[in-house]
């Protein structure tokens, strides 16, 4: 028996290096993937749109100066390194990487970057928001750009890193709006767009990746795949069947109730924990919710447990959590959350009485485009009526909702949702101008220091004050956290779970 053990051991020793070689082997280069998306993006210019779908597709074509690494840390992408920031936080000196080619053969210089950043400040929602604080954007030399601020503004880097309303870098002579040429510096270039059929991206052979390892959206971007095709499949049930049949390499945004069905199919379903948060935005500008007591009555009346259960069906897909960022984010804090999950109709009634509420309708604007919005609205309606509100629920399509919410006369609450954004300043409630129009001294007292603080640890502490202000003034009602469901083919490797999935570094077995 002994010799046999010896031979087994020898075989194992011989095989061991082989296994370790295969475990660390470079993924296979080549192949085409089809990615099923929820629809056709309204544009391929991520600067002018804040739609997630635009960001998902275009992040393969265009790049920003910075992006997000693991744990959402800001990391350089087209910039050589993180910027040199003057001690007063007002001057950002950004060194650019050299020899970065555009898809059409040009090479990126500071001239392109300055032109692109100016386009961003003039055309992108987030850019315009930042522009009020920008004194100048200058080219110092061919590979250095300087941004001078009027006062310190800590969210600047996050805004420059984000992939929607994005500060993408375009060639200086390609700055028209709408965009004339879909030409960026990204790892994949647009080959063909057949609206409602596919968007075909092919590997950009001239791509200059960062050195080193991949780091979530940052670090090295390897182009293993020959092509990425984004295929719109607007019907959610058809996306599910496509996943079960194995027709796509990756299927985005699947209805959570299809999880069990997906398990038996040819694609592997995965849950992206704490993907986002549904929110009831309150109209603080006009109507009954302009009174703080009435907003507090809304806060007191609702039971998020029932709303989330109705919306997502199983605790596997949601979490009852009042914190504006869930655990795992550096921004997570429990400050102020004692006002969450009250489900106290008596308190709500008392607050309404105190506010002198006389039965004016509480207009809830919602859409069935996102079925979970509608389900939450139905449960909320019951709780509101229990508390003494007269509810007028208006169910409209999404385009109508986005138009009506711009008019403060038309609504009291509108329902929306958002992924957890890497930087709080990216959230719409932080802006006084976004529908809801929350703009009070208490808000500014909390957000002002948060935006101007340069020290990262200090900003984390200051965010607790922001969250406290949100709960004290109730400009919104965060319902909870929800998970996203997606599926991918078993032979698709290297896709990191992310709210805006990306396919550089992905490969096929």
């Amino acid at each position, binding site marked *: 028996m002994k010799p046999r053990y010896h031979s087994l051991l020898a075989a194992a020793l011989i095989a061991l290096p082989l296994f370790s070689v295969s475990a660390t082997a470079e993924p296979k280069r080549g192949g*085409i993937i*089809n990615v099923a998306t929820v*629809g*056709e993006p*309204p*544009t391929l210019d991520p600067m*002018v*749109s*804040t*739609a*997630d779908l*635009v960001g998902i597709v275009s992040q393969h074509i265009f790049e920003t100066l910075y992006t997000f690494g693991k744990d959402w840390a800001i990391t350089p992408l087209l910039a050589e390194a993180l910027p040199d920031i003057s001690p007063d936080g007002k001057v950002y000196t950004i060194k650019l990487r050299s020899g970065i080619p555009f898809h059409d053969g040009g090479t990126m210089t500071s001239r392109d970057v300055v032109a692109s950043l100016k386009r961003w400040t003039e055309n992108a*929602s*987030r850019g*315009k*928001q930042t522009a009020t604080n920008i004194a100048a954007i200058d080219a110092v030399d061919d590979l250095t750009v300087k941004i001078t601020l009027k006062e310190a503004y800590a969210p600047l880097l996050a805004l420059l890193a984000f992939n*929607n*309303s994005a500060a993408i870098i375009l060639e200086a002579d390609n700055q028209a*709006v*709408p965009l004339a040429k879909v030409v960026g510096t990204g790892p994949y270039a647009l*080959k*063909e*767009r*057949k*609206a*409602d*059929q*596919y968007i*075909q991206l092919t590997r950009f052979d001239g791509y200059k990746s960062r050195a080193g390892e991949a780091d979530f959206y940052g670090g090295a971007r390897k182009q293993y795949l020959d092509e990425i*095709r984004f*295929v*719109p*499949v*607007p*019907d959610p*049930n*058809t996306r599910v*069947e*496509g996943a*079960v*049949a194995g*027709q796509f390499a990756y299927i985005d945004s699947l209805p959570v109730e299809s999880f069990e069905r997906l398990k038996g*199919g040819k694609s592997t379903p995965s849950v992206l924990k704490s993907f986002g948060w549904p929110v009831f935005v309150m109209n603080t500008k006009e109507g009954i919710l302009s009174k703080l007591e009435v907003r507090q009555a809304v806060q007191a009346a609702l039971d998020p447990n029932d709303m989330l259960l109705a919306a997502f069906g199983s605790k596997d897909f949601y979490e009852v959590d009042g914190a504006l960022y869930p655990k795992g984010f550096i921004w997570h804090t429990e400050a102020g959350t004692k006002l969450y999950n009250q489900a106290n109709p008596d308190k709500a009634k008392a607050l309404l009485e105190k506010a002198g509420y006389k039965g004016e309708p509480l207009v809830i604007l919602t859409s069935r*485009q996102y079925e979970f919005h509608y389900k939450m609205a139905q449960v909320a309606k019951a709780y509101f009526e229990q508390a003494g509100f007269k509810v007028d629920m208006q169910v*409209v*399509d*999404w*385009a*109508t909702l*986005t*138009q*009506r919410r*711009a008019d403060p006369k038309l609504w009291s609450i509108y329902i*929306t949702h*958002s992924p957890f954004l890497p930087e709080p300043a990216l959230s*719409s409630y932080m*802006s006084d*101008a*976004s*529908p809801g129009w929350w703009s009070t001294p208490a808000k500014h007292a909390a957000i002002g220091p948060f935006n101007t603080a340069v020290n990262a640890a200090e900003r984390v502490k200051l965010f607790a004050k922001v969250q406290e202000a949100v709960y004290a003034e109730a400009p919104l009602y965060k319902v909870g956290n929800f998970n996203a469901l997606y599926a991918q083919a078993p032979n698709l490797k290297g896709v990191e779970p992310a709210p805006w999935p990306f396919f550089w570094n992905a490969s096929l077995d």
Partner: protein
Amino acid sequence: MVGYVLNRLIGMIIVMFIVATVVFVIVRVTPGDPAAVMLGPDATAADIAALREQLGLNRPMLIQYVAFLEQVARGDLGRSIFLDQTVLSALAQRAEPTFFLTVFAMLIACAIALPVGIMAAWKRGTWTDQLVTAVAMLSASIPSFWLGLLFIQFFSVRMGWFPTSGYGGPGESFAGRMQHLVLPAVTLGIISSALITRFTRTSMIEVLSSDYIRTARAKGVGHMKVLLQHALKNALIPILTVIGLTAAVLISGAVVTETVFGLPGVGNLVVSAVLRRDYPVIQGALLIVAGLYVLLNFIIDMLYLVVDPRVRF
């Protein structure tokens, strides 16, 4: 005859003008804003207003209307707000799947409906007739999205015979693209066959009870000859009408079926355009569709001349 055709042509122009006006007004009075959709959920009111100005949507409605009519008169349906192409090219790009879907669906519908309807009429009052009537009722009542999903689950997922959705990727062969149309065409064909079956049955029953059919039978003409040569020809007029109208409905975009199967056809384009409030595409597509309806009706009327020698203008 010439006078009749000229009258019809003038009528068609008037109808198209009315359609253009109605579509323009409906699209504009419907709430929703293409600028808000394009800019995404976090866009500010100022951004939306700026884009509206850029797109010319803030001009007085009358000025927009006159500009639209001028454009249409030049044969220009405008440019899509979202697709970075003209409305005509967007429609042309989507014409292929819709056209072939319509043709296949109509062939399937007629292949089912004509023999079944004729048989039901022939066996009037028997269990065969009752069965045909019941199945036709059932087919007409089935929602196309449900039947489509059922077919996807069985033929695509379980059997793996057909793709679940789409119209093929870049470089897909004609045969490959047609393969994507099989399930939607069968879905539509079955549903459309219900109406044609019922019209065929009714029309045939009416004709079969005519004196000339009784005379033909009395003269000893064979069953098949009576059915196919004597009865069917005269029963064809209402059947042709319903086939034409069904084809018109399908060619204008089998909206639900195209959406379920992710087919980039005219119906899908219209749905996307409505959801996005892509005004030029909605207007252009509806104008073309209305034009096709008018044209098909005209063709059907002309066909009456061929089928029914009694019809003279």
